[in-house]
Structure formats: structure tokens, C-alpha cells
């Protein structure tokens, strides 16, 4: 029987892979993809928790977790649009998408 733990372990593993992507890739677009993978793993955990939640006083379960996922997806879409246009502006100005070359603000 597949329980909550299975989904949460899967979510944790995928989140860690996204974290590795963010830390280890140097291309700004791949870094963004890592962020998306992490958001997606969090969504999986939210839906799984919603499915294994105890019923409320009236015996039904509200789909709160799924509504949260809906919001997360909307925020992720906004974030990706802005971040990708920043990547394009970066490429136009500095002719690179390597995060190591963009160190103007580093002390």
C-alpha cells in the first residue's frame, strides 16, 4: 500500500535534486529550471498531505492543499516570466548567461 511517506520521500528526493541543479549548474536558465523542480516537489508534498489529512468535524476534507498548489503554479508562472526576461536582458548586456561571470554586485 502506498502511504504518505512514499510521496514525501519522493518529494524530498526531487527537491534535493532541484537544489543540486541550482547549486551545481552555471547556466542561469538551468538554475531557473532547478528552482522550478523544487517548486514542483513542494506541490507534490502539498497534494499528498491534502490526500492523507484527517477529516474535519463534518467528516469531509477541504481541498485546501490543492488550492495552495493552484496558487503556487500561478506564482511560479509569474516568477519564470520575469526571471527569463532578466536572463535575456543579461545576455543582451553582458553577452553571457553564466552566473559566475555576473559578479558585479559581489563584494
Amino acid at each position, binding site marked *: 500500500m502506498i502511504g504518505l511517506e512514499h510521496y514525501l520521500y519522493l518529494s524530498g528526493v526531487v527537491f534535493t*535534486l532541484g537544489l543540486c541543479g541550482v547549486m551545481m549548474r552555471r547556466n542561469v536558465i*538551468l538554475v531557473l529550471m532547478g528552482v522550478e523542480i523544487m517548486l514542483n516537489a513542494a506541490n507534490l508534498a502539498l497534494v499528498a498531505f491534502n490526500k492523507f489529512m*484527517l477529516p474535519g468535524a463534518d467528516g469531509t476534507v477541504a481541498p485546501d492543499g490543492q488550492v495552495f498548489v493552484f496558487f503556487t503554479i*500561478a506564482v511560479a508562472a509569474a516568477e519564470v516570466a520575469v526571471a*527569463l526576461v532578466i536572463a535575456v536582458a543579461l545576455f543582451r548586456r553582458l553577452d553571457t548567461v553564466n552566473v559566475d561571470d555576473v559578479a558585479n554586485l559581489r563584494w
Partner: protein
Amino acid sequence: MEQLLFFLMAGGMVAATLATIFARNPVYSAIFMILSFAATAGLFVMLDAYLIAVVEVLVYAGAIMVLFLFVIMLINLRSDELEGLKVNPLMVIAAGTFLGLMSKAVSDLGPAVQSRANDLEGTPALVAETLFTEYAVPFEAVSLLLLAAILGTVVLARRSQDA
């Protein structure tokens, strides 16, 4: 049957995510990521979150990944600029620590959740009812956020005169 399906989806999701991270060419990364989102949508169906599964495919695998592919083509990297992972021992320690803490948290789950699945079914009618009553104000806030994102994108994408 359920177990077989779960491990198929979970294995596909982890394998596609690994391929996303390790692929040298960003286009391959994007395509493997679509595969990973498809596996996630399958898991959402197994959790009876039908509406979220459809939104995942439409918005994530559809809109967001098309945006990624579009920008990858716009930037058009030369082949000598493609590179793989740059691993530093600190990163491995950080990722390992996170995974360890996460496993510890999962193995100490509290009493607010149960081991047996409840009978919640995320049909569009049920999710929409909650979304438009209890969460009406956050819903409107999200529309403002999207508007702000559109304006920000247009401002940033415009060629500035002083450049």
C-alpha cells in the same frame, strides 16, 4: 497495481529530473523536465487531484516549458559554451544535510495526518468552490501579481535607450 503505478511514476520523475540536471544541452534539459512534469501529473491523478493534474500539464509542461525553450533559442548558446556540472564538496554536504533532515522529518510525522487516504476528490467543482469562496481574496491578489509580472516583463524586455 497501485504500487506498480506509483513506482513507475516515481522512478520516471526521479530519472527525468536527474537527466534534466545532468544534460549538457539546455534544450535536452527542458525536454526531460517536461517528462518530469508529466510524471508529476500522473502522481496527482493517483492522489485524486484531477484538476491540479490538468493544470500541471497545461501550465507547467505547456506554457512554462515553451517559455523556457523560447528563451533558450533566443539566447542561442555556442556549442563551446555548453558545460555540465561544477561540483564543490560544500554543495554535496548541503544537499546531503537537506536530504537527511527531510527524511528525519518524514519519519517523525505527527498525528495530524493518517496512514490511510481520505476520500477527497479534487474535481473542478470542489476545488473551484473553495477557491472562489474561502480563497477569493488571495485569488484576486494572484491576478494583481500576474499583472505586475506582465508589466515588469514588458519594462525589462524593452531595449533601454542608454544601453
